[in-house]
C-alpha cells in the first residue's frame, strides 16, 4: 500500500481524472473531498456489509405480515386520505 502524509486542503491525484482532497481533520475523523469521473462508483467500504446484512434480513419475512401486505399497502397508497 502506498502511504502518503497530507495536511488540510492538500490533495492527491490518481491518474488523470481523480483528485482526492483532505477537507478537514478533527480528532479521529477526516473529511475527504473526491473529484472523479461521474461514472466511477465511490463507496464507503462498510456499505457493502450493510447491504449484505439487509439482504439477509429480507429473507426473514413474517407470514402474517405478508398476508397483511395488500391491506396495508393499498390502504396507505391508493387511498391516502381514507384513513383519517
Amino acid at each position, binding site marked *: 500500500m502506498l502511504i502518503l502524509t497530507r495536511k488540510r486542503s492538500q490533495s492527491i491525484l490518481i491518474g488523470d481524472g481523480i483528485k482526492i482532497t483532505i477537507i478537514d481533520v478533527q480528532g479521529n475523523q477526516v473529511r475527504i473531498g473526491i473529484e472523479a469521473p*461521474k*461514472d*466511477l*462508483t*465511490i*463507496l464507503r467500504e462498510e*456499505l*457493502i456489509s*450493510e*447491504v*449484505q*446484512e*439487509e*439482504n*439477509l*434480513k*429480507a*429473507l426473514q*419475512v*413474517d407470514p*402474517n*405480515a*405478508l398476508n*397483511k*401486505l*395488500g391491506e*396495508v*399497502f*393499498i390502504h*396507505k*397508497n391508493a387511498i391516502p386520505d381514507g384513513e383519517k
Partner: protein
Amino acid sequence: MIINTARFGNLQCNKEDIIVFPKGILGFPEEHEFVLLRDVIQAPFAWLQSVTTPHLAFVVLDPWVVCSDYQLDVSKEVEERLDIKRKEEVMTLGIVVIPENPEKMTINLRAPIVINIEKKLGEQIILSCEKYSIRYPILGSK
C-alpha cells in the same frame, strides 16, 4: 422445468424465464439463477426466487412505486456486464424487508437490483448517491 421453493412448493417454470446473476446477490455470491414470481404475492410486489436454493427468496418492488423521482445511475461497467444497450431493456427492483409489523416495511433504494429483461441478466448494484437509504420506509416515516 420444476423449481423447488420453500414458500410455494414445486413450481413449473420456463428455462427462458431464468435470470442469471453472474455475481450473485450481495451476501450470496454463489446464487446465480433466479426467477421473478408475480402471481403469488399482492401486486405490485413480486418474489425474486432462487432456482437452486428453495428458502432463498426476496420480496421486491419497483422503486419508482415508492419514490417517484428515484434516479438510477448505472455505470458503464454495469451496462457492459449486463449487455444493456437500450433503457427499455432495464428493469429495476428494490429488495423489501417486511418485519412483523408490515407498516414498518422498508425498501433498499441504495442497492437496487438491475436486470436486463431481454438478455435475462441481473446484478445488485450500489449507488454512489448518499441520499438513497438502505432502509427507506415504504409507507412513509411515521
